[in-house]
């Protein structure tokens, strides 16, 4: 069956949603416009800058070059899912805060999700591994030193057990 609109069911940050969407709507636009989750930022819109990175299942993906219909039946985690507004920050967020891992903050949600994937898979990654894991995320103001330092710190403080 072919469609221009389609009803999708998916879980975002633990909440189940059912929405009808245009099939050409990117996952990034769906998160921002349809669900109001504006923490996922949209930079280059062609998969280069990494600002729109979210987790789809266990894997980080660029939500600007994925269509919302492709997430049908799956689980998405965005930066809003890392911690609740009332509760403490996620250890990664806390580490970015403490180690000057952000300045303007535009790229930060993407960096957090890429770092989350790395640290979820790996204890005590080396500096090279951290830089490789973050190489798909561009930051245009802080520079990368503070970001790498923050990921190293979060590796120590985040109890993943």
């Amino acid at each position, binding site marked *: *069956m*072919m*469609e*221009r609109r*389609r009803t999708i069911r998916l879980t975002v940050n633990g909440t189940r949603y059912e929405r009808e969407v*245009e*099939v*050409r*709507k*990117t996952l990034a*636009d769906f998160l921002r416009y349809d669900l109001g989750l504006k923490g996922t930022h949209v930079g280059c*819109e*062609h*998969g280069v800058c*990494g600002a729109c*990175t979210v987790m789809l299942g266990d*894997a*980080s*993906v*660029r939500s*600007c*070059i*994925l*269509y919302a*219909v*492709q997430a049908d039946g799956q689980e998405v985690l965005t930066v809003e899912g890392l911690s609740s507004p009332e509760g403490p920050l996620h250890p990664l967020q806390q580490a970015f805060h403490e180690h000057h891992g952000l300045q303007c903050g535009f790229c930060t949600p993407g960096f957090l999700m*890429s770092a989350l*994937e790395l640290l979820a898979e790996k204890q005590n990654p080396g500096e090279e591994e951290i830089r*490789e*894991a973050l*190489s*798909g*995320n561009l930051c245009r103001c802080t520079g990368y030193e503070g970001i790498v330092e923050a990921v190293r710190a979060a590796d120590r403080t985040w109890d993943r057990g």
Partner: protein
Amino acid sequence: MKPAPFEYAAPESVEEVLELLGEHGEEAKVLAGGQSLGPLLNMRLATPGVLVDINRVEGLSYLRSGDDVLAVGALARQRSIERSISIPRRWPLLHQAAPYIGHVAIRNRGTICGSLAHADPAAELPAVAVALGARLRIRGARGEREVEAGDFFVNYMTTDLAPDELLLEARFPPLPPRTGTSWKEVARRHGDFALVGVAAVVTLARDGRCERVRLVYTGVAPTPFEAGDAEEMLSGESPTQELFGEAAERAARDCEPGSDVHASAAYRRHLVRVLTKRALGEAVRRAREEG
């Protein structure tokens, strides 16, 4: 930014995929990982009428190395190369080139077969497939056929695939004994498309001479470029730095790079010279370790 309107179908079997492709022909585009197609759609450089998403088709995500051949299903992600236990040992060139494909989030989605079918002349996997002598299993309404990677790439982003056919599987043969491989590339930033990349596959004879050499390049022609004359120069000879230099010179002369905003043709030829020597040196060293 959003793509021009299209119709979307998410079939659940290969038969349904082929039916849709048969029905819509040139109007249809297969969506696998979408890491190359997505940007083209967003920028409206591609405006297909129908997107046939194959991600819901069961049983296409495999990497099978049970027999001697590595069989890669149409939906196997590029990231799976890095997670495989057998690939680094038995098809090391794939493992050597994989980290240069985009970034982790790109490789999580991007598929191996998708990269081959997209046939970007700057992409790593088409050159790797040609260098390893991969065979591609293609299915269409009229049945199945197999094409060698060397014959698959026809022109800039153009392959031997007919509009109503699907690239079902890529098959990588085992490397002969005493074979070493190397991938080298230069990109402006890590993860960007390379200005020039080279795959070297060197098989040494028992006496240490080169028995068979393959040199395949990205970024210097509309399709993966095999430097046949340079390969020939090395065949039967003892591998020496001097000979590598001569072969590199030959490859640089024979390739047909273009100039663009990123690099001139002359600079690309320079890279061919430098990278050929490095790749040959590393491949020979690895072949000796295999020895």
